[in-house]
């Protein structure tokens, strides 16, 4: 995160100058997850006791703009591949965000994407989700956001959910000061 200050410097120039313009952040969340090798998650159904269906909580460096800014838009765009090994059913891929690492998986997912799976086939499920809840939008103003992924299976199936893209587009209004 040593480059974060560069972002901050740029942001200050933008804040000083952009007037009523917007600051648009395109955050490649996938790059943070794949860098930590947390972009792939095996699934199995029914889930045996003691087998996790989540990835370890990951850290994403976010905007750190404080509470005075107004978040106009938070949108997630991406795609997940369900590489199914056996069985027929469906898989749900859920994404969680939270400001606290310990509570990432305790709430409801921010969004989820499901896909039917068949033996030996790969199902690609793209998604494009707008976050409506203002409180959820404001989460991205924090300097650090924690992300988690859960893959849950319906049916007697097994395979791997592979995230192939996940970008967050955050648009804020100019109220940095």
């Amino acid at each position, binding site marked *: *995160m*040593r*480059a*974060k*200050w*560069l*972002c*901050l*410097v*740029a*942001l*200050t*120039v*933008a*804040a*000083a*100058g*952009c*007037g*009523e*313009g*917007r*600051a*648009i*952040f*395109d*955050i*490649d969340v996938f*790059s*943070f997850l*794949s*860098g930590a090798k947390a972009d792939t998650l095996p699934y199995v159904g029914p889930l045996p006791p003691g087998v996790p269906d989540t990835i370890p909580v990951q*850290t994403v*460096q976010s905007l*750190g*703009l*404080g509470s005075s800014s107004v978040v106009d838009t938070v949108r997630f765009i991406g795609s997940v591949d369900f590489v199914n090994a056996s069985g027929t059913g469906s898989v749900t891929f859920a994404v969680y965000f939270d400001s606290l690492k310990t509570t990432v998986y305790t709430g409801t997912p921010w969004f989820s994407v499901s896909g039917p799976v068949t033996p030996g086939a790969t199902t690609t499920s793209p998604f494009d989700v707008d976050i409506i809840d203002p409180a959820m939008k404001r989460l991205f103003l924090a*300097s650090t956001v924690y992300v988690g992924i859960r893959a849950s299976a319906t049916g007697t199936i097994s395979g791997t959910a592979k995230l192939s893209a996940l970008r967050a587009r955050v648009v804020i209004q100019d109220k*940095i*000061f």
Partner: protein
Amino acid sequence: MRTFVLGFGLVVLLGGAAAPAAAQWLVTDARRIGMGGLSLGRSGSTARYNPAYRAVAEKAALHGQPKVTIPIPLGIIQFLHDHPHLSSDPAFDYKSRGFNPILVANTILNLPLYLEVKQAPTPTNDVAFTIGQDSLRVNLGATSQLVPEDQFGISGSSRPLDPGFGYKGFRVGVMGWLHDDAELQLGDKLLAFLRDSVPARHNTLYSADVHGLVAGGFAPTVSYAGRIAGDTARGFYAGGALHYYVGVGYGRTDGLVGDSTSDTLFAGSNPVNPIGRTLTQYSKPGNTLGHGIGGDIGVAWVSGPIEIGFGVNDIGATITWPDTRLDSAFYNHSGYSKPVANHVETKTKLPVSYIANLAYSVGNTTLGADVLNTGRGSVVHVGGEQRLGLFAVRGGVARDQRKRIEFGFGGGVRFGGLGLDVGFWTHTNSLSNERGITMATSLSIY
């Protein structure tokens, strides 16, 4: 984060405001503003920077100048209207979370004496940030033009006090002097990142060079100003001053501040990796006094309606400080400071300032021009006034230290010994290339 944002915003603001501040502020004469900031006769900057003008008779009647000018600060009314509860306004309360040092600095740098007739617009474009674990790119759009390519800063050389006495053109006095200089220059890589939207790179230092200096003291001065040839209607004047500068104290720091990226742009838990390297030199008040010799010279020629002058200040004004301490400081994750040397001799130099002025007054018409350079670029004023019975119309053009052209225009009405003047002056701020317009008003007593 907010501190950082505000801090950098201040730098941008101060950097951009420095030039117009030096060129414009504290001009309270609406008549002068209407002529684009032109200095005439012994008004404005001419007497300050040209020692010969001490001997030049006031040409008040010839230039239509008043004896006394009283500003009418309509801008204060506007300011108080915008900030009706100043004492409790969080933007001005440094203890408040809503404290806005940018607004405070802007208010100080652009004192609200004038009525803001037209605000200089600020860019309203969107700015885009693309962030990945190993990528970072910023597109500031039109706002990128605000990122200064050249060195920018604030500097000044003032003479706050100059008591003394004189006889037949000679004068002996003790002049106070103060020199301050703050500069910042963005490094090439940081400049490219901000201005040209170049993606951030691995293992790269993004930095800015910094320089700050403040020095002050007093100077026993012997000066002379007198008419060398001619008479009051047509004469050649010369003036000079010899200063023995005594330095009471000074501090100076030069260095580099910035941050470096690592193998992966966004890796690890440490959000920043600031790096700072500075060399600080100072001679505190109480140390052995600094000393140096310098001088001012000036000439003026008055021939009927024509007046020409040229003056130079602080020629050769190098101050030697015999008891200076040097410290180096380095910061990378943690900081330390190391004494480099103590009780050593260092030198500072006052910037040489010069002014050239020209005025032509005939009948009810006055035209003039002046060029003033105080060590940080030249400021040029060209303007004039036409008096039409009770009324006067004025106009002028100025080029400020940022080489931007500004315009002045205005008028006045005079009833016997009392006059009312209105002057308009275009201005640009650090956030826009488009001009705003301020209006100054003042009463004149003739």
